[in-house]
Every structure is written in C-alpha cells, then in structure tokens.
C-alpha cells in the first residue's frame, strides 16, 4: 500500500500566531512562504476571527485557497527552547510563486527536526569525533581544538596546499551570503587555499565561464521575461521538475496566452501572440508534455538531438539567422566589440595564446559557419525542424519588428559536452539577435540552487583550477575540510574516488585508535604519522551524517535556513531574508559561525606555536551572530551592499528586491529589474564579445571511446520529488516510499531484450565503475537511451561517469555510456510503486 499519513485534521493557525518571512531554501526559484508559529498548548478555531486567515474554516475552501495547508506543512519544533507549532505555507503575495508550493518546498515544515513527531532525527546535534572506533559526541571546543591542531600541523609541513577544501558556493540552505562569506573569509582571506572545490564539480570554477568571459553575467533577465517572450528557447533543462514554480507561474501563462495583456501593455504597436517554445533535449520530459497540453503541439518544437551535439545546432542557427539578415545590426554595432578591432581573436581571460576564442561578430560567424545540412547530420534532427526553430527564434514579426526570444539553459549544457564553447554559442545567438537586457529576452542559466555568493577574490586559485578529486586520488593533501558536500553521491569518477578516499581516511582512523582520546599531543602526532604515510584527515561540516562523512574523523553540526537568518537571491537576482523561526537542533550552529570559531581556534593554536604573523591573518572573526557575518561580508563587499541590512530586507518581505541594489529611497531598497538594459556589458569598455565556437565532437577525454564501447547512453538528472542528493529526503517517509531506488528510464523493447520488468534492480556498469537503479519503462525513450536519477543515495550515477573534464575542469556527467544487466527482480518495496507514464495529457 502506498504511503498515507492517516491525518484527518490539523491544528489551526491561531489569529495571533507569529508570522515570519521564508524563502524556500531548496531550488533556484526561491518561492515565498510564510512560517507561522504558536505555542504548543494553543490552537486557532474554525471561526473567522479565531484563525490567521480570517476565514470560516468550517466550510470547504475553494481551489487555490490561501486558507489550507497540507500535513507536510505542519510540525512541532523548538523556538527559543520552547515547543511550538509550526506551519510553513506558500505565500500568495509573493510575485515569484503567487501561492504555489512544490513537492519539495511544501515539505519544508515536515523536513525540520521534531523530537515529538519523529521527523529528521538524522540531524546532527553535537560535534562528533572518531573515538574508540566509532563516531562519538563531544563539545565544540574539543572538536575545534583537534581540527585546528591537525590543520596547522598539516600546513606547517605541507603549506596551505596541504589543506583541501570542499565548499558550497550557492544560496539557500547549506549556503547563503552569510555562510559563503564565513567560509570564504577563512579560506580565501585568512588563507589562500588553492586545492578547493565546489559541491557538484571537482574544482573551484564557474559552471558558465564562457558567458562571463563574453561580458554577459548569467542571470541577466527577470522572471517576467518568460511571460513576455515571443519564443522561449529551453536548452538542456526540464523546468517543470527543476524550476517548478518559475515554469508554472511565468512560462505557462505565456504559452496559455494569459500574459497577452501584459505583452500588449509592454510593447505597444507590436504584434503579440501567445508564446512558442523550442525545447532542446535528447529526452522527452514532462515539461514537453505540459507545454503541448497548454500551447498546443503546433507551438511546441522539441528538438530531440543526439546527446552532446547542441553546439553544432547553435552554430547552424547563428549561420542561418545571419544569412537571412535577421540579426540586430544596431545592437551589435552599439554593444559588442566593433568589427575590425579584433582582426585577431582575443585570448580568453586567463587563457593561453593558443586559446583565443573571444572576438567580434563577423569573425565569430566566420569561425562558426555551419550549414543546416551539416548540423542535421550530426544532431540527427530533421533539417526542416532546425530551420523552423531558427524562424521561431529570429524571423522578424509583422512590421519588421524584432522577435523577442529568451534563452534559458541549464545542466544539459553545463554538464554536457564541450561546456565552454556550447555556452558561448548560446550567448552568440542571444547577442546576435539583440536579446540581452531587453524585455522578453535574456540569455540565462536557469539555475539549480539559489545563489548567495560573497567571498574574497578567488584569483589565487588560478585557471584552470586544480582538479581536486584527481589530486585526492593521487594521494595529495593531508587534511580535507568539507562543507555541506557529499562527493560520494555527487561527483564524477565516484567509484574510484570512494575507494581511495576510504583507504586514506581509514589509515588515520586506525592511527587514532592507537592513542587515548585525552592525550591531545599523542593524538595529533599519531594522526600526522598516518598523514605522512598517505593518510587523510577528514572534517565534515554538515547537517546530517553524509555518505562521505562515513569516512570522516570529525563531524561539525550546522544549522539550516529558518534555524538561522539567511539571505540568498533567486534566478532573477531577487534577494530576500529568511527569518529565523526555530532553533537549530541541539548545539548545531550556522556555517558562518562554525567558520568563525574554527578561525578563532586556528589563531589560538598558531599563537601557541609562536607564529604570530600568520595568526594575525585569522583576526576579524569575532562574529556573534549570522547578522554580524552578513554585515562584514555582503553589506561591506557586494555591489550595492551598503543599501542592504537585515532590517531593510525584513521590510521588503518576500518580494525583496532584485540585485544589485542601487539605492534606498522611501524606506525601500531600490533594485535592478534586468541587467544590461543600458546596452553596456561586463567588460572593460562595456562591449560584449562574441566567441569562436567551432564544433569538435565529444570533447572530454574518454567519452568517444566509451560511446563506442558501451550500448546504453546513461543520460542523467533530477526528478520533481527529490531535492538535490536527497540529504533530507532520504529521511522523509513520503519520498522514500515513492523512490526507494533511483529510477532508470528505459525503452520497453530494451527492457524486454534484457529480460527486465518494471521495478527490477539493474546494474549499470562500464570501465569507470558500477551502480544500481530500478528499471522504469519509458515508452518515449529512444532505443539504447536511458535516463537515470542523479546523485541518489541508494544508487550513485556518478559511479559510472568517467574522469574526463573540459579544459576548465568542468565535469561532463551527461555523456556517459554503459552496459546494463539485471541484478534482482522487483522487491516488495518496488512492487508497490506505480510505473505508469508521468506525462500529462489533456483529456
């Protein structure tokens, strides 16, 4: 039987419940929610005056009512040490989501720790250390002292390059401006750590170097642009599942035609009609089905290209559009590098002379020239479909008016073949058609997490950045600080990394087991002996025991959004403050304060060692609260930051403002709706660059060989129900009932050939490694093309992704090939699942 809560009623939010602003801490969209809290021994009533909504709750409420919440939106938590009731529900007044919740965000309340209701008891409550052969609790001073002593001992022997760091760089939970600043000030301010990586890639680098090199910041439009565009071009993204309420609340109105009034108002004298959409994705997703249901099939063009060939398609679009004369000549002349000025191509920033892709429009066009026929051959698409898409993107409208196209791209490109050039090729198209900085346009990444980056310069890291996983596998480094990253689940070449990482950290564990805990000097000495022999000391700062944490020697418990005040921005740079509405579990602390206390401990140990000059570098971490970290970081260092304080953000509520802030007037922070609306880009003279992006096949090492050797494409990505690598959801009954194992979508005929039934467990294997998944029939899947859920705890797709990266150390997860065989028939857990099609059909 499927999971049912058997909840027949819920406590009612009383009229006098406390109200807090909340931005969903999961995906990039950053939907507005309200958290209501009230004492455990009180409740509201059904009468309009006795509940928060002022509504007669003894009546059935209508669809889309603000006066209902699901059982997942309720919990009992601690607030200032007291038990309180908590409801977190979507905010109808937030312009991002207009009251919509998603299957992830609407479980925020249920995904908090509750002793009373047995939710998220996996959360760490105390620092834990490897003592007598298992992880045992200790206090902060003890844990930090050990970390500081081993850290300084390693640095004393190996220099700062012996300290490896994995740290989040994003917003939302396990991120946010406070926490990126706290960690950043420690590792890039007090120290200059070079061997550093981010949660989802093996180096410290941008996912979108190309657009930045061209002078076009990647989050340059606003969500309203999706309502205003004539054509949306969705590339390597499945927004219904991964930017859910952005898609539902801003794309769908355009496709349905309900944003027509807005278009008429915004573009007087211009022909407007309901939007069209071009979706570039090898797989048929639920997004495509939804678009067809809303816009009609004639307004949806799905280009199901051969995996990894996007680049050649964009080059063909550019060529066709330029040859038709559908480019925006005035824009190119005014806002991009003038022709002739770059007779030679410019090296990209940090690049070598041999590596010179930045240029003017004419040179880029010459370098990228690709015929429709050539593109059709490589992508496997029909020539007429490529032409049709080019028309939808750039054919002038009635009266010769420029067609407004918005380009949204995400992991299909970012984790796809030839990231740098492919990203550049998309931006080429947007610049050539004048679709940046203008209503209904934009060339944007759609985003995964929210953003919330505030750190001292990372210039010392260099470009290309260090391939940290490779160095770890080679036995380099003595200590590893991990901040909310679980590489066991979310890296490439994971099979290999795990083997080596376990071996190296086990060496240290064994050494630690030979000394009494209370003899700190003997302990540090024993650890250092093991490190000299190739061991690795691992410190994991996280909210739950992670998979990589199984190898660690110290766990430091962190707080999440809502257990602390936290600021972030979403995919249209909308910055909000989530107010603290409950206590962190036990002794957990915000990451920024953990970083500060660690800095304090290192400073103290260095002074003990007589290294006062180095110790001085660790000054400036006397923060008491996350607000202190915010004021030290964002407020002082970010563009427009001096206009922004917690108090002001609180007033701005769930609609916040769009970064950068440009002032403060009439009690409001003044923001920026779109970037580059003045036609000036992020280059020295404000002129954007085009890029030479010729096609060069499967670019990352080992990919072409893998494709030749193995039968199945193992495309991979997210699904609606799971947030990130399921670090919370793995402890959520509703989710785990639905998704006990990662699914792998397969064509039914492929399943038949392998003797597979729905729900059977299969092994996916190649020469990089092996992993498991449950077979999910997908009639829309092409033969030999599968799609596996990424980053899931009970079957890690990264195990079969080879080590190949691009020239800037960007992983290529998507182009993976492997063989598949049956492990076991469907178990009781998978038998009760529905394997029917997820596709909606208007009926």
């Amino acid at each position, binding site marked *: 039987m499927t999971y049912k809560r058997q909840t027949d009623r819920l406590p009612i939010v009383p009229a006098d419940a406390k109200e807090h602003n909340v931005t969903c801490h999961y995906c990039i969209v950053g939907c507005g929610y309200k958290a209501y809290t009230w004492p455990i021994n009180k409740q509201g009533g059904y009468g309009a005056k*006795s509940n928060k909504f002022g509504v007669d709750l003894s009546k059935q409420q209508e669809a889309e009512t603000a006066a209902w919440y699901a059982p997942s939106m309720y919990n009992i938590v601690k607030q200032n040490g007291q038990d309180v009731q908590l409801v977190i529900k979507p905010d109808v007044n937030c312009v991002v989501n207009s009251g919509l919740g998603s299957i992830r965000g609407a479980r925020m309340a249920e995904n908090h720790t509750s002793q009373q209701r047995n939710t998220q008891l996996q959360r760490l409550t105390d620092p834990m250390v490897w003592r007598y052969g298992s992880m045992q609790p200790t206090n902060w001073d003890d844990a930090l002292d050990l970390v500081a002593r081993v850290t300084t001992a390693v640095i004393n022997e190996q220099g700062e390059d012996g300290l490896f760091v994995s740290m989040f760089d994003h917003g939302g939970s396990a991120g946010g401006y406070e926490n990126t600043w706290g960690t950043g000030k420690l590792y890039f301010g007090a120290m200059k750590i070079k061997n550093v990586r981010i949660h989802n890639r093996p180096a410290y680098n941008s996912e979108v170097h190309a657009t930045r090199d061209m002078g076009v910041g990647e989050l340059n439009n606003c969500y309203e642009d999706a309502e205003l565009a004539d054509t949306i071009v969705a590339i390597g993204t499945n927004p219904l599942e991964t930017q859910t309420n952005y898609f539902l609340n801003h794309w769908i109105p355009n496709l349905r035609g309900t944003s027509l009034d807005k278009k008429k108002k915004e573009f007087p004298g211009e022909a407007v009609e309901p939007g069209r959409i071009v979706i570039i994705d090898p797989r048929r997703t639920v997004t495509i089905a939804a678009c067809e249901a809303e816009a009609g099939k004639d307004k949806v063009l799905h280009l199901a290209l051969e995996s990894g060939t996007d680049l050649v398609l964009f080059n063909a679009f550019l060529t066709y559009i330029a040859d038709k004369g559908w480019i925006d000549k005035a824009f190119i002349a005014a806002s991009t590098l003038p022709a002739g000025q770059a007779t030679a191509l410019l090296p990209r920033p940090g690049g070598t002379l041999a590596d010179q892709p930045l240029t003017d429009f004419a040179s880029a066009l010459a370098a990228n020239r690709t015929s429709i026929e050539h593109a059709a051959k490589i992508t496997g698409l029909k020539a007429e479909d490529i032409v049709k898409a080019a028309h939808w993107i750039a054919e002038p409208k009635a009266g010769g008016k420029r067609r407004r196209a918005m380009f949204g791209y995400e992991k299909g490109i970012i984790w796809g073949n030839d990231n740098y050039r492919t990203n550049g090729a998309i931006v080429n198209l947007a610049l050539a058609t004048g679709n940046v900085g203008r209503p209904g346009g934009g060339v944007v990444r759609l985003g995964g997490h929210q953003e919330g980056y505030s750190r001292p310069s990372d210039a010392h890291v260099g470009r290309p950045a260090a391939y940290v996983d490779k160095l770890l596998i080679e036995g380099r480094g003595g200590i590893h600080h991990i901040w909310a990253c679980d590489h066991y689940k979310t890296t490439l070449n994971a099979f290999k990394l795990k083997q080596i990482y376990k071996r190296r950290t086990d060496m240290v564990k064994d050494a630690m087991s030979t000394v009494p805990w209370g003899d700190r000097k003997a302990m540090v000495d024993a650890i250092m002996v093991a490190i000299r022999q190739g061991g690795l000391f691992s410190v994991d700062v996280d909210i739950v025991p992670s998979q990589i944490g199984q190898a660690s020697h110290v766990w430091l418990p962190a707080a999440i959004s809502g257990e602390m005040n936290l600021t972030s921005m979403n995919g249209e740079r909308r910055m909000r403050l989530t107010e603290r509405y409950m206590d962190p579990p036990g002794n957990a602390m915000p990451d920024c304060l953990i970083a500060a206390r660690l800095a304090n401990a290192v400073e103290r140990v260095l002074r003990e060692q007589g290294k006062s000059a180095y110790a001085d570098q660790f000054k400036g971490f006397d923060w008491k609260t996350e607000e202190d970290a915010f004021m030290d970081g964002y407020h002082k260092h970010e563009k427009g930051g001096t206009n922004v304080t917690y108090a002001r953000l609180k007033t701005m509520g769930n609609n916040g403002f769009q970064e950068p802030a440009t002032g403060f007037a009439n009690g409001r922070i003044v923001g920026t709706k779109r970037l580059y609306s003045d036609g000036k880009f992020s280059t020295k003279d404000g002129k954007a660059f085009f890029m030479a992006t010729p096609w060069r096949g499967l670019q990352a090492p080992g990919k072409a060989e893998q494709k030749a050797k193995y039968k199945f494409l193992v495309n991979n990505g997210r699904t609606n129900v799971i947030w990130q690598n399921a670090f919370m959801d793995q402890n959520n009954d509703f989710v785990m009932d639905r998704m006990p194992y990662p699914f792998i979508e397969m064509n039914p005929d492929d399943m038949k050939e392998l003797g597979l039934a729905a729900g059977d467990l299969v092994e996916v294997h190649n020469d990089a490694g092996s992993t498991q998944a449950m077979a999910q029939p997908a009639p829309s899947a092409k033969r030999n093309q599968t799609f596996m859920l990424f980053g899931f705890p009970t079957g890690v797709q990264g195990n079969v992704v080879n080590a190949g990266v691009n020239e800037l150390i960007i992983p290529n997860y998507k182009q993976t090939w492997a063989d598949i065989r049956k492990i076991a028939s469907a178990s009781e857990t998978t038998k009760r699942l529905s394997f029917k099609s997820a596709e909606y059909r208007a009926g």
Partner: protein
Amino acid sequence: MKRCERMVDAGRRRFLSGAGVAAAGAAAATMLPAKADAAPTPARVNYPSNRLANVSQLKLNEPVDVAYPDKDAPGVLIKLGARVPGGVGPNGDIVGFSTVCPHKGFPLSYSKEDKTLSCPGHYGRYDCEKGGQQIWGHATQNLAQYALRIDAKGDIYAEGVDELLYGRLSNVL
C-alpha cells in the same frame, strides 16, 4: 487572552470581540479556579458511514461520481477489474477516491486508458491501481482513498478517508 482558548467557543468569540486584549492576563487569572468546561473531544474525527452506490450500478472501468464525507467533497467510485490495494467487493477491485487534487484543489479527471486520475491544474497524476499513489505531481501526499464496506445487499458504504482532504483542515466539517 491565551489562557482563555479553552473556554467554549461562543464565550471565546465574545471575549475576543470584547473591550481589550490588555485585560486578558488578569481575566485569565480570575478564571483559573473555574473548572475547565471544555468537553472531552475524541482524538480523531467521526467519519459518517454513507451509502455511495450499489455494486450493481458499477460497470467495469466506468467511474461513478460520488461525494464523501459530505456533498462538498467530490469523489469517484471505480470497479477496476483486478484486485488492488484498498479494493473491496468479491474481486477486491472496487475503489473510491477523492477527486480534489491535494496540490491546489483542482478537479481530477479519470482516464480509462491507464486507470489514472489527472489534474489540469499543474499536471499531477495519481494511480487508482496503487492506492492513489502520485505518479508524478506537486502534492506532498498521495491521493485520499476511501475506506469502503459492502453490505449483503451490495450497497457500498464509505466509512473513512486516509489523507487530509484538500481545502479543509478537518476531514469532517
């Protein structure tokens, strides 16, 4: 004021609309000695036993519109033709579900082709053969299924629901 929540509802409403909240603390204190006059209430709602249809009215894979626990809570009865979770009747194939989508309350429609309920609101889908499991969607719960009983005459009664219904904070209003 907070302490007065236990007063009977009518009194409470009068109290809240009264002169001032500032007096609440004092008022509460003076009321303390009085016996709590809250009547004991059962821990779960009392579901009515409602006759929804007779087995003879059900045709294979033809949904029959019903409402439960009251007229404002639309639902459906379906004879699926094969034994399924929560199914009743001689073949264990008769099921009943709420047809209000637990995401935002849009009305679900039945597809005979694959025995699912689909939502035009935001494309949610529920499997009638798997206890209303959400195949895909935005709701944070599976679809509410009826606890059904069939008597000797073949009358089908609903006597409970296994999830909170959309749009009400108590399944029985």
